[in-house]
């Protein structure tokens, strides 16, 4: 693999490595709130979080470009702090990636928190655990599968991002040129062998990551089952144990 391809690879891993913890930091409180609230704001916020699932990435990228650019409100605030506006830079990629991958982190977390249910948290409250304590010692460990899925899918999804990155990052070698863009460049220049190497690498990595998530989820689900369902049915009459082959 040429050194020209190592650079985007390294940049992509760095981007996903920075984005994933940020995604969890933003997504966890958001998912927790969504899983517990009875507020009327819940649905509109759920819809906003889910937007990247349906929007063309270029739309999201376009508005981010306007917002974060030197004339956008965020970009201007950035400038007022004496910083360069985050467009066409690594920080711009991170911001774009966090927004773009947010539903892939919030949705599994929200589902996991919802399946924890009210009971264990109420039990913890009557055992003198305050709100943060119950969150950290009951909700998070019981939702660990959700965290695992969220982190893996968030990471893998960031690796594969193209449109948003291209819109707000451009294609600056060493700064914003990530693997997906490098693949596009190779294809444009008819360098199919290089394009293959990067593409196959992405394909295999993404498949392995998803496989791992599904396998771990499955194992966990089996373990969480009552013993009379996991093994051969001990009490066939009690219902739920015996299944037709």
């Amino acid at each position, binding site marked *: 693999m040429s050194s020209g391809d190592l650079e985007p690879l390294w940049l992509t891993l760095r981007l996903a490595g920075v984005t994933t913890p940020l995604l969890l930091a933003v997504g966890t409180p958001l998912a927790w709130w969504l899983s517990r609230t009875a507020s009327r704001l819940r649905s509109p916020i759920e819809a906003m979080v889910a937007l990247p699932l349906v929007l063309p990435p270029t739309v999201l990228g376009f508005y981010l470009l306007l917002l974060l650019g030197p004339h956008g409100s965020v970009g201007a605030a950035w400038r007022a702090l004496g910083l360069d506006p985050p467009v066409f830079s690594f920080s711009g990629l991170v911001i774009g990636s966090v927004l773009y991958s947010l539903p892939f982190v919030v949705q599994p977390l929200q589902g996991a928190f919802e399946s924890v249910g009210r009971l264990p948290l109420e039990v913890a409250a*009557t055992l*003198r655990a305050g709100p943060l304590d119950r969150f950290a010692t009951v909700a998070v460990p019981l939702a660990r599968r959700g965290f695992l899925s969220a982190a893996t899918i968030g990471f893998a999804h960031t690796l594969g991002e193209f449109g948003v990155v291209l819109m707000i990052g451009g294609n600056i070698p060493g700064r914003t040129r990530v693997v997906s863009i490098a693949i596009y460049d190779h294809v444009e220049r008819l360098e199919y062998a290089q394009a293959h190497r990067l593409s196959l690498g992405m394909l295999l990595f993404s498949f392995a990551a998803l496989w791992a998530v599904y396998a771990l989820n499955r194992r966990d689900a089996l373990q969480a089952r009552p013993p009379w369902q996991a093994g051969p049915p001990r009490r066939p009459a009690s219902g739920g144990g015996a299944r037709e082959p």
Partner: protein
Amino acid sequence: MRGRFHLARGGGFALDVDFTAPATGLTGVFGPSGSGKTTLLRCVAGLERAPGGLLEVGGEVWQDEARGRFLPAHRRRVGYVFQEAGLFAHLSVRRNLEYGWRRTAAAERRVRFDEAVDWLGLGALLPRGPAALSGGERQRVAVARALLASPRLLLMDEPLAALDAAAREEILPYLERLHASLSIPVLYVSHAAAELLRLADHLLLLSAGRLRAAGSVAEVSTRLDLLPWAPEAELGVVVEARVAGHDDGFDLTYLDFAGGRLSLPRHAAAPGSRQRVRVLARDVSLALERPERTSVLNVFPARITEIGEIGDGSGTGGAAAGAGGGRQPLVKLDAGGATLLAQITRKSLVTLELRPGQPVYAVVKGVALLL
């Protein structure tokens, strides 16, 4: 303990209860499903916030909305045993037990870890995970876990309802022993009258979100205007008694209660121990003179305090079902301070000219120990 909660809910349900409960002993909260028992318990625990609510436990004000005071659940020092045990699936039994214990300051701990483990027979279960426990075992862990947080008040919300009959029988003796050794008050929600007759000292009767009656078990369960207080409860009374001794020659056990000495087929209960005895109304008949030369051993002088009727009018089955459809007189008796109920025919009522205040003899044909 004193509380007042008004809480309107969707679907037309409203809890509107103003109650007091004694500072010791087990107070049963009884009512049909949907009567607000669980909501009341959740209000007491602080899991539900009733606007305008008031709650005082052992001289401590936990909630007084008029003064802007509301302690959240984790600062109330309640133990709560839910219908589903609610064990933390990611922690072993030991870590489950330690959860509240670790969060209780050492100076506030009133229960030793080993003590709670012993009381509920959990020694062998400590290293296991909750998924490897039976329903009854889980509920025992939940009870011990609640006690280890050294609560000032123990709340139990139908802790046996999710168990099958065998598991229920397995756990009841533990609860009875706890009841005898605990010094804190217990609020125990149930819709099973038999359970409460066995465990409770006091009763709060709820229906449709309102308090219908409150008082000692003997008092509430024999109030003629409330009968049948539980559709499935057989009509009768529970009498507190003390085992006086055993008679080896006749295979009998003697128990003393306020009205005299009861004789029962021999039972293993230890002499001196306190027992609850169930006397059904249909097993009590009345005589104007002390019956001589009778096979019945249990005959007690008593006085009629009230005469009521029980019948099929309400159509709730249970007590009325045995009456064969018609209305039957029910006579309430005072035997040396203990209340007995006697179910007789209207013909006997008329021919014996029974009326309140009259001295009679209660002839008790059947007695059952509740243990």
